[in-house]
């Protein structure tokens, strides 16, 4: 990492009139292995290095990337950023001001035990193929797939405030799935859908999630759900499995508490938020047992870091306390705008080619006192357990949501009695969180990783973490996404992530250039 080049960028920015500048020099290496139906459909390595320069000139922002990592390349990039900032400064309602932050100097490494880049590609492929072979032993399984992905990112952040921070992030992801059905296809995934679980950890997380040990169960459940009846339409008590609850938190708590969104900066694409500042400290967001936090300091969670891309240390911030809406996700700019003394440290960019935005860290529901999932099921007279996300949608103010899951389990008198296919549930955010009457305890609490949270224009995908234990929500509308009555029996899930996914996304991006989301 050429720190001199990054520091040189700051010098050039100062000389061109920047009142503030930061430079992020980022080197990334990644490896992905993906198998489908006993073939390796994607074995890819990727490496990149880039320098992104952000400047504040006359109160306006400008940002550019260096095309070449040379002094000439840096001068060209900083010049572009300054020109952009000067143009921005001529269309402002007021100059951008940043909440104060001390200068920080630190070298930090995300914790891990086993370096996944030291595990051979052969071993990785073998693990996935073994899982596939095991899943395919179950009669009725039609398709199988698996994925392992690993990324090491080394990021240098320097700023004209005097910060000099080097962070190295190691991220690992793993997942398998099986599809069953004759004319319709039903998937079960492990540990999560759409590529599995992602953590800020090493190969040890692949071992811990025990793909091989879960392969047979996953296969059997895919066949089970393919033979199950359609989830009935009803109003009942819903228990959300922890990974589904993680996405519920992401969409209905994380996004609406992003303060740049609240201030209207995402209106054109990702939307705004119902959590306007007049609600702060007043709105009864959830029931009294609902406590939601954003915590960037959790070891091994996907949204963990030491410093954000404003140079602010990662922190734990309360968003909802005993059901009351009390806090936002902030940056130095938005914190100042709201009148806060300091940013909560949530400003991040997807690599050196993007300017940072307010992003979730690890936005989590704190554990409750309802014991284990089995205890919660035993305590439920009539309801449904919904597990593993399949479908998700929420309006542009984050009120009206609808989710679907891979499987549902009907509960009667404290016992699971029957699986159902194609389950879905619907609600209005505050009504839903106010109906939460039980949250499982710490033993069930898991930090789930969502690797592709999309926001911004141009669209940035970034990893976020969400701690959750299964929780119960009273009187929730279920089965809203049933197929039309004059159609064949509804199926779900014929196409989760496939072997084509990477190629299609790449082509999509290349073709449409500005296409977002």
């Amino acid at each position, binding site marked *: 990492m050429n720190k001199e080049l990054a520091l040189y960028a700051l010098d050039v920015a100062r000389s061109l009139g920047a009142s503030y500048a930061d430079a992020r020099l980022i080197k990334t290496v990644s490896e992905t292995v993906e198998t489908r139906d006993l073939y390796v459909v994607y*074995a890819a390595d990727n490496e990149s290095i880039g320098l992104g320069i952000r400047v504040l000139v006359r109160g306006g922002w400008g940002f550019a990337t260096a095309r070449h990592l040379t002094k000439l390349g840096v001068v060209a990039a900083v010049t572009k950023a300054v020109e952009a900032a000067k143009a*921005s400064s001529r269309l402002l309602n007021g100059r951008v001001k940043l909440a104060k932050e001390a200068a920080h100097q630190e070298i930090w490494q995300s914790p891990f035990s086993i370096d996944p880049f030291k595990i051979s590609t052969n071993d990785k492929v073998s693990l996935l193929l073994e899982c596939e072979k095991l899943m395919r032993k179950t009669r009725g399984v039609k398709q199988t797939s698996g994925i392992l992905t690993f990324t090491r990112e080394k990021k240098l952040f320097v700023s004209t405030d005097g910060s000099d921070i080097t962070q190295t992030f190691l991220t690992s992801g793993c997942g398998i799935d099986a599809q069953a059905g004759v004319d319709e296809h039903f998937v079960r995934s492990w540990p999560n859908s759409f590529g599995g679980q992602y953590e800020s950890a090493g190969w040890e997380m692949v071992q811990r999630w025990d793909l091989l040990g879960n392969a047979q169960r996953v296969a059997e459940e895919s066949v089970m759900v393919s033979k199950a009846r359609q989830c009935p339409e009803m109003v009942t008590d819903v228990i959300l499995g922890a990974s589904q609850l993680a996405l519920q938190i992401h969409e209905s708590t994380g996004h609406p508490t992003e303060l740049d969104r609240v201030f209207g900066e995402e209106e*054109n694409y990702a939307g705004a938020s119902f959590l306007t500042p007049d609600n702060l400290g007043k709105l009864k967001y959830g029931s009294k047992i609902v406590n939601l936090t954003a915590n960037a300091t959790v070891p091994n969670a996907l949204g963990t870091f030491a410093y954000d891309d404003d140079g602010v240390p990662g922190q734990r911030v309360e968003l909802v306390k005993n059901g009351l809406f009390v806090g936002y996700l902030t940056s130095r700019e938005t914190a100042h705008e709201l009148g806060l003394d300091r940013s909560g440290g949530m400003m991040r960019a997807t690599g050196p080619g993007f300017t940072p935005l307010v992003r979730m860290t690890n936005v989590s529901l704190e554990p409750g006192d309802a014991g284990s999932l089995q205890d919660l099921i035993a305590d439920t007279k009539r309801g449904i357990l919904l597990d593993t996300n399949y*479908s998700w*949608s929420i309006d542009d103010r984050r009120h009206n949501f609808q989710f679907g899951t891979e499987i549902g389990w009907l509960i009667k008198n404290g016992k699971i009695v029957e699986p159902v296919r194609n389950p879905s549930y619907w609600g209005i955010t505050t009504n839903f969180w106010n109906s939460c009457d039980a949250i499982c305890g710490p033993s069930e609490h898991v930090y789930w990783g969502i690797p592709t949270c999309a926001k911004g224009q*141009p669209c940035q995908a970034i990893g976020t973490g969400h701690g959750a234990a299964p929780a119960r929500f009273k009187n929730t509308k279920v089965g809203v996404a049933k197929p039309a009555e004059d159609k064949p029996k509804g*199926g779900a899930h014929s196409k989760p992530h496939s072997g084509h996914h990477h190629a299609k996304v790449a*082509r999509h991006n*290349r073709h449409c250039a500005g296409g977002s989301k």
Partner: protein
Amino acid sequence: MITEAKCKKIIDLAIAHAGDRVTDMQVTVFEQEQATSRFANNEMTQHVDTCVTTVTITVNARGRTAFFATDSTSTKAIKRAVDKAIETAGVLPHDATTLRVLKPSNLTEDATPKFSRFDPRIAALGPEDRLKRVKSIVEVARRGRFSAAGIFATYLNSYAIGNSAGLFRFDQQTNVECSITMLSASSSGWQKGYGCNLDAVDPVALAEGAASRARKSRNPVYVRPGDYTVILEPSAVLDLICFLYDDFTGTEHWYETSSFCKKIGKNVLGKNITITDDANHELQTGFLFDDEGMNRKTVTIVEDGKLKTPVKSRRSVKYLGGSPTGHGAAPSSAEGEFPMNIVVAGGDSSLEEMIASTQRGILLTRVWYVRDVDPNTKLLTGMTRDGTFLIENGKVTRGIKNLRFNQSVIDMLKNVVEIGQPVLAAGEETFPAVVPPMKIENFRFSSRTKA
């Protein structure tokens, strides 16, 4: 901007470095220069100027395929990428179905564009030029007492493919994009434009269109969810029909995961629906060769409601028969294809005529966060957004609060009663395509929301 000569040099270097260690090899170079001026609350919030070059090496070493991508074009980085790809391929299991790369002799048609998709005026735009356009949008907002948010963005894309059989393709194109939301205290309106030519996007006209929708939808009222006649503007049509694209691919038919599996030759949509994939269409964007270097052919996928054929890659034709259509992914063991240039045939109704012929219905400007909830029936859910109106007695009477829909897109395309003229529409769920506005019966809304 990267040149054709530079791309050729990178590709030749990689192929030479691999030598006889590989059976086949393909190298792609893709560069995108992107400049985005982003605004909200009638002020500039971001102003970015970026450039990324990605070199992707694909090696086939005796039936073992591996990829390596790097954003460095240095000799050292390219050689390292080749070495690493060969090393990875070496430990993979053998795949007897691996395809050889495309030979130049297989190219029988000229892929030279009939018109240029490169506009030097877009390439020459700087931050002051973008500011000028954003200011013109904000002026429209201020005049109407709205708050404007959106982007004005430009793209310069260069794409080269070369392989060890001697094939080399290169093209460059520009794109311009402008998306605008106008907000009042109780309403919003949205418009988005996209094209390869600077004249394709008129920021002031888009701003006025968004402002008009925000103005007309002030003080929206609730309507009861249920089945409605709807009129979808082209962007809304696009963001729904794109969920059928996967079902139009040969690989999904081969795997029997397409919703239209085993229905080739059968009526699958309404008789007034014809869908082609046509990279040469004058309104379309994108390169004219696929990721194997093959020319993109015009394919009639659905004709008068009948499924004719999916698009096919060189691999899927081995299982489905027929000829590859030039929609393939980079050569590897099991990758597929994709329709990148969808064109939905138009009809003879104008939007005004559709409204005039509607006794009671809903006009949708934009749909949002659309997701597939049942791929077998293509049941989709999503929300309306930024300009949803009630139509009564042939007139748009007022704005309504947003609604959630749960609607099969297949059923939707069986219930189209009027079609307008197609335009290059841009949405948020997919890349732009040429689609018309549509009037549809029995579109199902399942719930409403506060906003």
